[in-house]
């Protein structure tokens, strides 16, 4: 019965002002990001790997949850755009002293940060910050709880488009712990928004949220039928703490049933590509021969990740009120 709520990611002109989740973004906006990213891929290959688009701007990486990889890629992306970068690992400082998220953000606003890259263990944290900051500040969600990791979703579809340009004729399988995965949610929304006709999830019932089919996916519980004739396999990371407990009996049994091996890969189309957001658990969700095999595009994902993050930052910086 509620009042209609404006899309918190768009400014009053309908342009992207924060990147909080893939859900709620139109195909044209996603394509604009992907095409901008394509133009940045070459920058890394130049001798001077810098463009001046964010010169004089300050990008602040606030990581309430520790992460080296993601933070580093954002840092590289910002530096290649000539921004000044501040890294803040709040997980270890302010929060333990009782400071709230918004206190931390207010302090950084007072230091004139122009853009926040935020990671937090709770779903919705980036939305909370985006609602709080003024219209001249942009927020990028670098992962909030189980909710979204939109730059990962974007770099994944960037990679898919690179290898399989006709998105309207693809079958994609997302395999693993969908329940706890912000990556899975962002991938699914990115794929369906860009017109992929068939997105499957493959997982045991304990690792799928109730009503997961409402995300627009087909649900499979076994690899044999789920991987049949797919063009793209997106593996998800299984967190260590979930390997032995009430959700799964053991890593061994998980590998046996849902781990991607050469045998299982053979069920997919012969030219299927294999993706993983990293860091991988070799021998748990993916076999080394597959991870390092000819069909793996896991390292190109990392490379494209920087271009995609540069694209997001430059687009947001250009869309000011």
């Amino acid at each position: 019965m509620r009042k209609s709520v404006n899309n918190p990611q768009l400014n009053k002109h309908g342009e992207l002002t924060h990147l909080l989740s893939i859900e709620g973004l139109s195909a044209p906006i996603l394509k604009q990001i992907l095409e901008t990213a394509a133009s940045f891929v070459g920058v890394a290959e130049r001798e001077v790997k810098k463009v001046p688009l964010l010169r004089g701007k300050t990008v602040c990486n606030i990581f309430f949850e520790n992460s080296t990889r993601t933070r580093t890629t954002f840092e590289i992306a910002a530096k290649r755009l000539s921004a000044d970068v501040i890294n803040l690992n709040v997980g270890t400082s302010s929060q333990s002293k009782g400071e709230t998220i918004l206190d931390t953000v207010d302090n950084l606003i007072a230091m004139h940060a122009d853009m926040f890259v935020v990671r937090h263990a709770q779903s919705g944290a980036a939305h909370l910050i985006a609602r709080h900051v003024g219209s001249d500040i942009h927020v990028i969600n670098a992962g909030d709880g189980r909710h979204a990791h939109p730059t990962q979703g974007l770099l994944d579809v960037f990679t898919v488009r690179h290898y399989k340009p006709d998105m309207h004729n693809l079958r994609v399988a997302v395999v693993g712990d969908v329940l706890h995965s912000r990556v899975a949610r962002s991938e699914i929304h990115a794929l369906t928004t860009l017109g992929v006709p068939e997105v499957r999830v493959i997982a045991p019932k304990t690792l799928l949220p109730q009503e997961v089919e409402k995300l627009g996916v087909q649900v499979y519980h076994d690899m044999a039928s789920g991987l049949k004739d797919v063009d793209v396999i997106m593996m998800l990371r299984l967190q260590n703490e979930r390997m032995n407990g009430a959700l799964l009996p053991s890593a061994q049994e998980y590998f046996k049933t849902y781990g991607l091996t050469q045998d299982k890969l053979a069920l997919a189309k012969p030219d299927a590509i294999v993706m993983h957001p990293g860091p991988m658990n070799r021998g748990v969700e993916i076999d080394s021969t597959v991870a390092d095999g000819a069909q793996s595009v896991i390292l190109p994902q990392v490379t494209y990740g920087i271009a995609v993050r540069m694209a997001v930052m430059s687009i947001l910086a250009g869309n000011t009120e």
Partner: protein
Amino acid sequence: MKIHIKNGRLIDPKNNIDAKHDVFIAAGKIVGLGNAPDGFVANQIIDASNLVVCPGLIDLSARLREPGFEYKATLESELLAAAAGGVTSLACPPDTDPVLDEPGLVEMLKHRAKLLNLVNIYPLGALTRQLQGKNLTEMFELSEAGCVGFSQADNALTDTQVLWNSLQYAATFDLTVWLRAEDAHLAKNGVAHSGEVAARLGLQGIPACAETIALSTILSLMRETGAKVHICRLSTLQSVAMIKQAKKEGLPISCDIASTHLHLTEHDIGYFDAQCHLRPPLRTERDRDALRAGLLDGTIDAICSDHTPVDDDAKLSPFAESEPGASGLELLLSLTLKWALDNKLALPQALTSITSSPASVLGIDGGSLSLGAQADVCVFDADFVWKVEAKTLLSQGKNTPFMGLELPGKVRWTLLNGQIVYQHH
């Protein structure tokens, strides 16, 4: 003090009255309806032209936050809010600090409320000490101190043997146990209905079966012990069906729903709106419609505000870390009227759920305007549309999902025991 309320539309659901009747009040009682008693000379006349005159509302759950949580709200602020909402009687849960598990605390609370003289309060005592679910409280003594029922508030009783014993003990003294049906294990860390919205937003879900499993346990224990139970804040379609069956079977059971759940669904969470972080969680449209149908067919006895004022900061956190609950005393009437409008119900039928019906759940005389009854009266303008804004709410808790929305119905006067305790300007 003699008061004459004239020209109003008197709606008294319990006595089946919906007619233009003047009401005459003297010495705190209703002394005349329609015609003035002989020799009645009013000290004050309330002109209720175009207004509805009904029994003061009875709210089965309002947290007053005292003792212990005065930074969230105080007895004075919340009882003023109640009066402004037309509420003249309310039950308050025992999850204060200290917990209401000793007669002295209950007496103190009742005494303080009496001094403020704004609302009749009916405390619920703790069912177990400290609400820890281990040892029984002195239920008999607590009832003598004024507790009308015994509750675990939102602390589910995980030990079914303790639940069994507490129902046996309560049944011994014919006391009513108030329980929210929620399996603590299935609800662990949950903040939203297990369904589409939780799946999308990546929030830990609370499945509908967390409620039905707990309810089924309670119903089985009721059959064994003969205890009287009031189920607080029903939220699912399946549990409405279970209560209906239990009532048909003749079990001494009653239940309520929160006014928020009469209108909102999981989709109202939108983009992580912490104001929609409620206990139990907002569920699906089908559940909401089943709650509405359950009210209509009498399966559900009452609508309560489930008033839970929190301080502003408590909602300024990521959804799962925000404090659950909504401020509701001043919205109870309006949300009930909105339901009546949405479902094209006659006003008397809708008002039953917030007057006579909760009165019988509490086992008190209120909730009607019979001759000789205590003059607890609400006079309201059913057609007046107002906007919910922080500055218009008297409650210290400004936390409501309805903030900024326009709702029908505004209280003009509230009378407690024949005295005006609230007057809208």
